[in-house]
């Protein structure tokens, strides 16, 4: 009797904290989900249902809102614009950053430290803060109302952080490999292209994933540079849609959930890359 009692109490002592841990963590899971679930519920109601009972489960679900959004040509145009901007920005970031990071990680030249410090100065000048100066330059060179204007600005402001991340990854690749390649007659370019890049594929995909998320969600650059609704990206279009149809919240909710779907799908597939990019940047920075 006594032994089983003691045994049971030790089980309690061991498992009780764990129970509270799960309780607290579950509470936060709930908090994360409430806004998302409410939005999805709202999107599946008619306008009238949304007004009268906005936070009950949508029974029966109404798919009209989704059908209406998917039937709007403007939604697909925004989706396309966002995809174009995201893909071009990501390509540009990976291209420019891997070249520069390779030089900083693997080559020696006079003024290297200075050049590196200069290029990573951008970490102190975030895009939101510098948007006014950047807008003026884009206006001077006539790139307003042009997706290229959005793309080059997004690339430029993602350089510093990603060069830093990639340089860290590149420096972790053993020097012996480089020495061996040079002895075998590789040029620096051969080494970069044939040996380093293939080895650094996880690093490149981490940087690409970060660039994609940043570009996909970015609002301010298109907001100040794009007037024509044919060139709106999804975040800008979502904001304008909310302003225009603010009275029909069920429709807005449908628009917002649909514009979130690509991000969620991307996250579920690329979580590992996003996480490794962010932690590498933070731990090395």
């Amino acid at each position, binding site marked *: 009797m006594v032994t089983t009692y003691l045994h049971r109490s030790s089980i309690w002592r061991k498992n009780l904290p764990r129970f509270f841990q799960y309780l607290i963590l579950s509470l936060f899971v709930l908090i994360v989900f409430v806004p998302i679930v409410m939005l999805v519920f709202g999107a599946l109601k008619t306008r009238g249902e949304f007004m009268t009972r906005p936070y009950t489960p949508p029974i029966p679900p109404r798919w009209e809102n989704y059908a209406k959004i998917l039937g709007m040509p403007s939604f697909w145009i925004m989706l396309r614009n966002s995809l174009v901007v995201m893909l071009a920005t990501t390509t540009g970031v990976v291209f420019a950053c891997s070249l520069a990071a390779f030089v900083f990680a693997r080559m020696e030249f006079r003024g290297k430290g200075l050049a590196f410090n200069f290029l990573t100065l951008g970490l102190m000048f*975030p895009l939101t803060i510098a948007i006014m100066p950047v807008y003026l330059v884009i206006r001077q060179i006539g790139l307003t109302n042009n997706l290229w204007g959005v793309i080059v600005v997004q690339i*430029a402001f993602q350089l510093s952080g990603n060069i830093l991340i990639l340089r860290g990854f590149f420096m972790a690749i053993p020097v012996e490999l480089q020495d061996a390649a040079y002895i075998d007659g590789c040029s620096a370019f051969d080494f970069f292209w044939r040996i380093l890049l293939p080895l650094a594929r996880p690093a490149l995909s981490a940087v690409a994933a970060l660039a994609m998320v940043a570009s996909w969600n970015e609002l301010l650059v298109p907001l100040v540079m794009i007037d024509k609704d044919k060139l709106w990206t999804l975040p800008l279009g979502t904001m304008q849609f909310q302003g225009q149809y603010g009275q029909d919240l069920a429709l807005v909710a449908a628009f917002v959930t649909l514009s979130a779907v690509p991000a969620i799908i991307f996250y579920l597939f690329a979580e590992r890359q996003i996480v490794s990019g962010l932690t590498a940047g933070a731990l090395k920075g």
Partner: protein
Amino acid sequence: METASASEDVLDSPRQTRSPRRVQDNLTIVLFLLPALVLFLTFVVYPILQSLYYSLFNWKGFGPAVDFVALDNFKRILTDRIFMKAVGNGLLIVVLSLTLQLPLSLALALMVGRDLPGRAFFRTIFFMPYVFSEVITAIMWLILYNPDPERGFINAVLILIPGVKPQPWLGSPAQVMGCLFVVLTWKYFGLHMLLYMAGLQNIPQEIEEAARIDGANRGQLIRYITLPLLSSTIRTSVYLSVLGSLQVFALVWIMTLGGPVNASEVMATYMYRFGFVRFWLGYGSAVAIVMLLISLAFSLTYQRLVRQPDYLSGI
């Protein structure tokens, strides 16, 4: 480079310092740095220098900037009550983040620890809000914060508690910043938790085991082993959090437009209002310069003051 050229000098004749290999390497360096440098100079450095110039003009965007006003824009910004309110709100977000948001993230990271079953699941869920755009986040919460308890979920839950009245939330100057901070925390606590989890992963398990064998309890373990070893991650997370607070824009602009009566104005919405809505380009440039100086001053001081040698090198 010095040693390489020295050894080449020994091998080759003294005049032939420019070997084909060196020329090729230098060409590689220049070509490889060119794209990044050109983009950075054109779209980051040059705009800032140019705005430094424009900030000295009263320029409303029509025609060239000719009305030179010296430092008047800056004088006006620094004496504007609304700008000061924006700075104050920025500081409030910083203080709340450092005292509530980051400790919360750290506590959750410690709770999940190294090996709690379901660790990956919790990380996936908690980090998810980070990948939603601020626009989506803002609209979601705008619906929840509706002051009418028939419409807004938060008030609907609140009035279930006996004696509690529905609150105006975003409509109240006293509550609006707290409401926005809740949304910022919802969106970003997962990011900081992720960083802390990665930092925890880097602490050698042996050190914790040794302390436990020496009789340290859980509290002592966290206080004397985990937190000191996590200090470099904590410093990074603080840095990111402060710089992030300076950049809050979309969330505030969509949810409150900086209102009611400027109660939730932040520096970025102030700049957007004067620079882009009223199109005072000279004044907007000056605001941008002030914000850049604040960011720069913070970054430099933080790096100088806080960056101390790591407890264990290589972690």
